């Protein structure tokens, strides 16, 4: 009986060591000696994933070319540089006095902006000529006070796509957030 129990115990030891080595590399190959590269099913799944990703790219390209052709396209982006003096809640955008976007941000989105992400807030069409964009930023400013500021830009739309970036920056000198509009050339 004791021998049998010790055999079980020895199995336990093996489990212990296996657990130890398994802890070191989660993405370790199952067999270092050379397992088949991928199972047939796994290979087929990877193929299909790849095809769907390519398909999505082609669909996005088609959608944009059809709905927002380059000669009329206008895109409005939002970016945030540091942004410690302003906690963004929402952005409202008016183009030629018509509201085209009113967006409420989640904490994950604000964090993504902090890290350097740039949100394409609006994609639309505009005729060639002069236009005016007005953006309103709402959130919490210094000392946790409610904060609402606007920024305006007049721009000419020609036959190239027009990219406009709404930038939220910190003015450490003024200890205030600043809101600027950059028109990409």
């Amino acid at each position: 009986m004791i021998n049998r129990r010790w055999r079980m115990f020895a199995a336990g030891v093996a489990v212990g060591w296996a657990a130890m080595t398994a802890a070191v590399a989660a993405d370790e190959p199952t067999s270092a000696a050379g397992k088949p590269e991928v199972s047939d099913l796994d290979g087929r799944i990877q193929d299909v994933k790849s095809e769907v990703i390519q398909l999505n790219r082609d669909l996005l390209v088609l959608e944009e070319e059809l709905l927002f052709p380059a000669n009329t396209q206008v895109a409005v982006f939002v970016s945030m540089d540091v942004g410690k003096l302003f906690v963004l809640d929402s952005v409202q955008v008016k183009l030629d006095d018509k509201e085209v976007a009113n967006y409420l941000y989640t904490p994950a989105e604000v964090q993504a902006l902090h890290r350097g992400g740039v949100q394409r807030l609006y994609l639309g069409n505009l005729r060639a000529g002069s236009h005016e964009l007005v953006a309103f930023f709402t959130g919490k400013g210094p000392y946790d006070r409610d904060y609402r500021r606007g920024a305006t830009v007049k721009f000419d739309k020609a036959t190239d796509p027009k990219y406009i970036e709404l930038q939220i920056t910190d003015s450490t000198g003024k200890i205030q957030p600043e809101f600027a509009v950059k028109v990409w050339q």
Partner: protein
Amino acid sequence: MRTFLREALGRLAGGAALALAAVVAGGSAPAAAAEVDGQERHVVRDPHFGDSLFYFYQQRYFTSLTNLMASQQFGRVAHHVDEAEVLRGGLYLSYGLHREAAEIFTRLIEQGAPPAVRDRAWYYLAKIRYQRGLLAQAEEALGRIKGPLPPDLQEDRGLLQANLLMARGDYAAAAEVLQPLVAAGKDALYARYNLGVAWIKSGNVPRGSEMLDEIGVLPATSEEFRSLGDKANVALGFAALQNKDPERARVYLERVRLSGMMANKALLGFGWAADALGRPKDALVPWTELTGRDASDAAVLEAKLAVPYALGELEAYSQALDEYRGAIQTFDHESASLDESIAAIRAGKLLEDLLASNPGEEMGWFWNIDRLPQMPHAGHLVEVLALHQFQEEFKNYRDLQFLAKNLRDWAGNLGIIEDMLANRRQAFAERLPQVQVMARNTGIGKLEKQRDELAAELARAQEQSDGVVFADAKERALRVRLERVRATLERDGADPQLTGASERYRRVAGAMSWQLAQQFPVRLWDAKKDFRQLALELERARARDADLARAQREEPAHFDQFAARIAALQLRIQALIPRVTALLELQREAVQEMAVAELEAQKERLTVYTIQARFAVAQIYDRAGLAKESGHAPGP
């Protein structure tokens, strides 16, 4: 139970998170990155690259990847060409698309990307090859890295190299690689852990044990590291038991937390250590504690046998008999529960429930199961759900679900786009005749002729300094009156009443000429400016006219091209839908069978335990029989 599973999965997710974050964190030149709240911040020079990062940082990798690829197609990430490729390769890798990722990294290397990018590409290629079991090629790729990698990757690189060396049994070399990593940072716990293992396996048991011992007593800052400490202590404890050093084993095993995922193993070993010291009564304490825990754990089932074994050692045969019978009942009950679980899994309940209780927006690498399904005896599944392989297979299943929905959505959206195109084509056909009429009546040619006349007039006026050309309405009216006066004076000049009038006329006419001459430069400048504006407007009108003419000619062809593209894409979607559906079904079966196989193994283990318990019962009866024959009943 959820916490238990989380512990098991935390490290997997953590490792993956670090690796993919490093794809981007290391993507920029040092000058282009800044720290934000301890995280690297990217400086973006193309807004569309920033758009991909926006989704990437939210872990919405599918959107990030497809947006990035569309932007690359449009040529909108010109300032981040290499970075975009590294990001794309990393995202492909995250979806298990090794072939595509390898192609991207290989291309980056071949195209002579900057050294820092090339080094990262070699690193990812090494990682891909390692994951696919191509160990020699992985080592070769690692050897190509020339400079230091970004800090996040540097430790991973060392760990990878050590893993490769350990995989081919060169533990001494692995230890050499790991030593500087350990020396570099006190937080390099995984490196220390691996170094301990490498030393033990290379024969330097005392040094390896010492290293693992250090990890075992280190004050851990996170659950992940506390869990690693528990694992080190359990491993050391069992190693000490194997080396017949139960006293030492107790020291190690005592350090393991009672609530952690290694607790049951530690309690079992702690009991065996007491038993090995000849103290079966002490062994009963951890083992009895263990028998009260969830019976789906192998250590708990083993304790069900260990307790009566210890009682037997203490010659408490009657109690031992009761415990063995109780254990047999438990094993039978567990076996029946396992049958129920297997039936539920085969009925699809497991996957259905896992999907419902572990929602996620997109396909993703970081996504992990952290809730057990709501099904009977879900505890049986803890081990299988915590398996890396199961997680990967289930991720594939979930990814296929996502792809199926993505394709269905696009099939619908493409139908709408098709309708939109048809409406546009119809509207174009309806408006074309009116537009053509309007185009004929714009009179641009006539206006251009007038423009040319004006240009000539302007040139003449400038040449002759003719201020009269620029006279305003009032001046022109005055000039008409003066002309009338001049005519009257010529006709009736002899009239004595007009003697003073001639002089007044001369003065007024002179003043008028002087005024026009004075105003001439300003008026000429204004006129030229107005003329330029007019010419510009006319040019624009001509361009619009040309656009209109071109649109009339080309638009039907554009419509046809779009229609053809839509039809081709629709075909691709319709071809993919059944493939995804079929794979979904196959993968569902594969995942279910993986879970069933684990439960079958648990059943087999129960059968072995039951046989052992019955055998032990028979032995006790034998002893009782022998004792009776010899006039001694079994002990209490």
